[in-house]
C-alpha cells in the first residue's frame, strides 16, 4: 500500500500545491476542477520525478501555518518601519551594516525559507551563503546594534524553522 502510494505520489505536497494552483488559475471551485487538478498534480510530479530523486523531509504543517501568520504580521510591521526610515532618516544618519548569521539548519529547503523570510522582514536583505552553507550574510538597512538583529533572526525565525523541518 505504502509502495503504491509512493509510486503514485513521489512528492505528495507538490501534488497538493499544483492542484490548488490549478483551481486558483481556473477561478472556480467545483468537483470537476478538483479532480482535474489532482490528475495534473500526479502527471506533473510523475514525469518530473526523475529530476527530484530525493524526497524532501516531512514538515509539520500546523507549525508552518503559525510561522506564515507570524511572518505576514512581521511583513506589515516591516513595511511601516522601512517607510518611516525612508521618509525621516537623512542619508548621513543611516547606519547600514553587514551581519553574519551562523546557521544551525542543514536542509536546503529550510535555509531557502529562512533567507526568503529575512528578505521580506524588518530592514534586512539576505545577500549570500558561505561556500559550505554554514552561515548566511545579511545586509541591514539601519541598526545601532547588529548583534541584537542577529539574535532576533536566530530566535524568532530559525528556532521555529528547526521545529518545522524535522
Amino acid at each position, binding site marked *: 500500500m505504502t509502495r503504491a502510494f509512493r509510486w503514485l505520489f513521489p512528492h505528495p505536497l507538490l501534488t497538493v500545491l499544483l492542484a490548488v494552483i490549478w483551481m486558483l488559475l481556473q477561478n472556480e471551485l467545483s468537483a470537476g476542477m478538483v479532480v482535474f487538478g489532482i490528475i495534473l498534480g500526479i502527471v506533473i510530479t510523475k514525469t518530473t520525478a526523475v529530476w527530484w530523486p530525493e524526497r524532501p523531509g516531512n514538515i509539520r504543517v500546523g507549525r508552518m501555518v503559525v510561522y506564515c501568520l507570524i511572518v505576514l504580521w512581521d511583513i506589515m510591521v516591516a513595511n511601516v518601519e522601512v517607510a518611516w526610515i525612508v*521618509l525621516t532618516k537623512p542619508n548621513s544618519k543611516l547606519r547600514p551594516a553587514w551581519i553574519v548569521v551562523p546557521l544551525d539548519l542543514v536542509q536546503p529547503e529550510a535555509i531557502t525559507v529562512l533567507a526568503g523570510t529575512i528578505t*521580506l522582514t524588518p530592514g534586512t536583505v539576505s545577500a*549570500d551563503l*558561505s561556500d559550505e552553507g554554514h552561515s548566511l550574510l545579511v545586509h541591514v538597512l539601519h541598526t545601532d546594534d547588529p548583534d541584537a538583529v542577529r539574535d532576533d533572526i536566530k530566535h524568532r525565525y530559525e528556532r521555529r524553522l528547526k521545529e518545522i523541518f524535522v
Partner: protein
Amino acid sequence: MSMQIIGTYAVAVCLLLGAGFALVGTIGLLKFNDSMTRLHAPTKVGTIGIGSFLLASMIHSYVFSEGSFHELLIMGFLFVTAPISANFIAKVNIHKRSCDTPPMPPRDDTWSTLNVPLADRALETKAQE
C-alpha cells in the same frame, strides 16, 4: 446598496494605501546613495504596495461582480520571487565589489559569490593584472 458603498470606500482606502507605499518605495530608491541600501526600499515597501492594490482588486470583484481569487496567486508568486530578485542584485553588488566588503564567515572559507573554482583561479589573477 449600503454594501456597495462600504465596498467602494474599502477599495478607495486600499488603492490610496498601496499608492502611498509604492511612492515611498520609489522615494527610497532615489534617496539612498549606495546600491545595497537602495535595495531595501523597493523589496519591502513595493511588496505591500502591490499587496494593497491586489486586495483592492479582490474587494472590487467580490462586491460588484462574481468575485475572483486570481489575486491570491499573484500575491503568492510575488512573495516567493521578490526575495530571489533581491538576492540576485545583492550578489551582483558583492561580485562587482561595489559595496563595503562583507566580513568573512566564521566557519567556512569565503562567501559563495566570491568563491572562484580552482580551475578558474589562474584566469582571475591574470584578469586582475
